[in-house]
């Protein structure tokens, strides 16, 4: 009877101190849905109680159903035979449990059969599922596909597709990548054309499609003949069928339970979602942002799993007459993991909260009457949270996924030789975590997005609200360090801006991203520190370390050292293949 919600003191801490009044008000309005749906909440407290129970339910399924099957799923993997993909047995059983428990329409509105849960709860659920089986996350955690249909498709399309997602009858895939269009989605070539009856059809190849064998595909395709950039791309819904042929699945390093498909579209029928030409610029961007928060939660969950196993091992393992946890280097590794896991969660939950506010106010802004006295305020809030979500989302993915890599690697180090063996789960966590910094936008692309946000001062209001708070005693000392970190971040951004050299800015992107994450987390920890003695010590450890690293990064940035830009070819020297 394991429960990944109740056994996690940090998730409990985060949940208990959440103030989601604004989010719940946006999700539930005046709680009118209770009249129509017996499972809708009647008040804020009732909504929070419901959220807690749903997470408890997810935690139980993760502990009792999903986690015990994960090793077997990894070994068996998804299978491909003659155009047909079959999930591993454990994957099928886990999906049956999740859909049987009504959990596949987590965030969708009740009128389509969903639970109408906020993103912050979905993120908590994805983290738990990923801790149990990272590969399963790519099915459970891809509900953004349905969410995209909900946001942009017509009412008729929504009614046709969304209820089937909610019951678990169908799963989806986001079909974007092609052999020559990876990070650069503007280069997508898959052709969409209208046949003589005006029906849209698609022709071409998509590659590296996570769960591409899913039933409902959201396909990015070139609908405007002769165009070359993102403005010629539209989004289509395409159902699985004989003209959507899965040619192969990839043999991968990790997430073996998740089939990565190559899809051949052979004049396959599709239907347009929303408007033409807005496929990439509007819909995919929205889809990706949702998915990025999901992948951040995946990195977070894998890190949690690895940290726990490493800690348990370090307590039991005796060498040189004592438990290895009591050896300085090992305890340092473990503390670094623990701080990484808890800070990742703080950033992730804050991001999800802002995303909820952003979606809520955007939705309100679309429906509010011009004459409504609140109209202006709603529009301003929508713009503010949109700006903040646009930077916090890549920050979460950047931080949590890189943290996941570091933690899974360190966990193997704690176990030593045993960690390298398949007898333990650590090597699986390590392999599974490896994809998280690549798909849904690489770490490098997240840094580009973070930089864009920093240059547009996207966090100005967020920082200002927190810097203004009065703090006392030791927390005030830590607060002073965080303010310094924030100042150095601003100075660093100003420096590259002044330099005005795009390549140099790009080169410094990760350093500035680190600094941004550390400053934001620093403020979050100051708030948490006043609520718990454990968080106070976590805050002290994290902020002191981050302050030192911030100085190092700042020094590097303002040094103007651009040797890599100037000399990379000389540095790589004799190894460069002849052109």
């Amino acid at each position, binding site marked *: 009877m394991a429960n990944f919600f109740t056994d996690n003191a940090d998730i409990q801490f985060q949940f208990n101190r959440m103030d989601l009044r604004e989010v719940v008000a946006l999700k539930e309005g005046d709680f009118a849905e209770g009249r129509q749906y*017996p*499972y809708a909440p009647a008040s804020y407290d009732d909504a929070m*109680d419901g959220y807690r129970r749903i997470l408890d339910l997810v935690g139980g399924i993760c502990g009792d159903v999903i986690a015990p099957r994960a090793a077997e799923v990894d070994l068996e993997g998804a299978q491909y035979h003659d155009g047909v993909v079959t999930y591993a047995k454990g994957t099928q059983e886990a999906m049956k449990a999740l859909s049987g*428990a*009504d*959990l596949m329409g987590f965030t969708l509105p009740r009128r389509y059969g969903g639970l109408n849960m906020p993103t912050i709860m979905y993120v908590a659920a994805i983290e738990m599922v990923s801790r149990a089986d990272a590969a399963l996350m790519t099915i459970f955690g891809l509900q953004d596909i349905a969410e995209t249909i909900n946001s942009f498709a017509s009412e008729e399309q929504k009614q046709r597709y969304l209820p089937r997602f909610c019951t678990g009858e169908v799963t989806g895939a986001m079909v974007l990548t092609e052999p020559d269009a990876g990070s650069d989605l503007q280069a997508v070539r898959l052709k969409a054309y209208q046949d003589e009856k005006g029906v849209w059809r698609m022709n071409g190849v998509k590659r590296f499609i996570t769960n591409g064998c899913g039933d409902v595909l959201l396909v990015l395709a070139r609908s405007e003949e002769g165009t070359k950039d993102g403005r010629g791309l539209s989004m289509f819904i395409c159902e699985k069928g004989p003209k959507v042929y899965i040619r192969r699945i990839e043999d991968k390093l990790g997430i073996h339970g998740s089939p990565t498909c190559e899809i051949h579209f052979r004049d396959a029928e599709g239907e347009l979602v929303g408007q033409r030409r807005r496929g990439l610029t509007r819909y995919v961007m929205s889809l990706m942002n949702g998915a990025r928060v999901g992948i951040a939660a995946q990195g977070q969950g894998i890190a949690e799993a690895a940290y726990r196993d490493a800690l348990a091992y370090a307590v039991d393992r005796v060498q040189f007459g004592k438990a290895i946890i009591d050896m300085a280097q090992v305890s340092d590794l473990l503390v670094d993991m623990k701080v990484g896991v808890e800070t990742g969660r703080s950033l992730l939950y804050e991001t999800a909260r802002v995303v909820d506010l952003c979606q809520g106010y955007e939705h309100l802004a679309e429906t509010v009457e011009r004459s409504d006295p609140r109209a202006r305020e709603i529009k301003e809030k929508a713009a503010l949270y949109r700006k903040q979500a646009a930077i916090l989302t890549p920050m979460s993915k950047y931080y949590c996924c890189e943290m996941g890599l570091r933690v899974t690697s360190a966990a193997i180090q704690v176990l030593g030789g045993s960690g390298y063996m398949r007898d333990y789960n650590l090597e699986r966590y390590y392999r599974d975590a490896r994809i998280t910094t690549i798909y849904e936008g690489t770490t490098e692309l997240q840094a580009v997005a973070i930089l864009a946000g920093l240059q547009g001062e996207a966090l100005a209001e967020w920082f200002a609200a927190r810097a203004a708070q009065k703090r006392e005693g030791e927390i005030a000392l830590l607060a002073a360090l965080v303010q310094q970190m924030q100042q150095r971040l601003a100075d660093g951004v100003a420096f590259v801006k002044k330099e005005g050299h795009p390549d140099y800015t790009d080169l410094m992107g990760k350093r500035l991203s680190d600094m941004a994450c550390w400053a934001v987390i620093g403020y979050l920890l100051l708030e948490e520190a006043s609520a718990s003695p454990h968080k106070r010590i976590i805050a002290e450890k994290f902020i002191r370390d981050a302050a030192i690293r911030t100085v190092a990064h700042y020094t590097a940035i303002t040094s103007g050292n651009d040797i890599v830009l100037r000399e990379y070819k000389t540095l790589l020297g004799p190894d460069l293949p002849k052109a």
Partner: protein
Amino acid sequence: MPYDCIVIAKQVPDTKNVTGKAMKDDGTVNRAALPAIFNPEDLNALEMALDIRDRFGGSVTVVTMGPPAACELLRDALYRGADRVILLTDRRFAAADTLATSYALSCAIRKIGKFDLIIGGRQAIDGDTAQVGPQTAEKLHLNQVTYVEKVQDIRDGRIEILRSIDGGYEVVRGRLPILLTVTGTANEPRPPRAKRLLQFRHHTCPAEITNRIRKQLEARGREPSEAEMAEAVNPVLTEAVKQDRMLTVWDADAVGADHDKIGGRGSPTKVKKIESVVFKGRDLKWIEANDEGAKGLVRELVTEHILG
């Protein structure tokens, strides 16, 4: 053809996750120290009933006998899909052994009236007797099959069952109505459904409300007066009734139970002595599976004063 199932279930202390002081000084279970859970094999019984309903249609009614806190088990049953739940509760039911329990359950089942199957777990993890199912069947003059692994088919008033036996399985057939007891390997109980969980989480009974409010008031450091209790309980009770959130509760009179046959009074079982036994022996002794082996074993048990 649809079938109506009654599931008999018990809330038990979680003996698999023992924490703190699980045993009292007198060697009995300290129920207060252990979390109360749905008896695991009763969950298998519920799953079997839900599966029968999925396959053939019909209904699933869950009955439990226990204190008001057993409402939690009934809510859980609702979350997982039960159509109707009944709490059999009365102070006069307390301290019942298996005989008194099966009598009380049989009274409740008679009151329910129409049913095709009664399904229970093989045994409860607190008593481990495996007697309540069979005794209930006897009291209701029903056919019974124990150790059920699978219901293969139900057709024309007959049921075909895969039954677990030593070293294998046997297939048996019986006529409805029938009582089945189910093993823990029979199936994997489905998880609660989120929507039903949200819908039924506030369902309760008057005694549970009273107990909860009494605890809250006691937390202030003194015994609440009757007037204080009434003042606190009544609005909650009224609201629960108004919202249609009341679980069905039957007491001894509601099921027409003979007061001499229930609870401690109706329980001939007397605990003579409880010993804390620590297993030390490591030797295994094989007894041949024939008459001679069996006779030898019985002889030995009698000589050792374990039997007779």
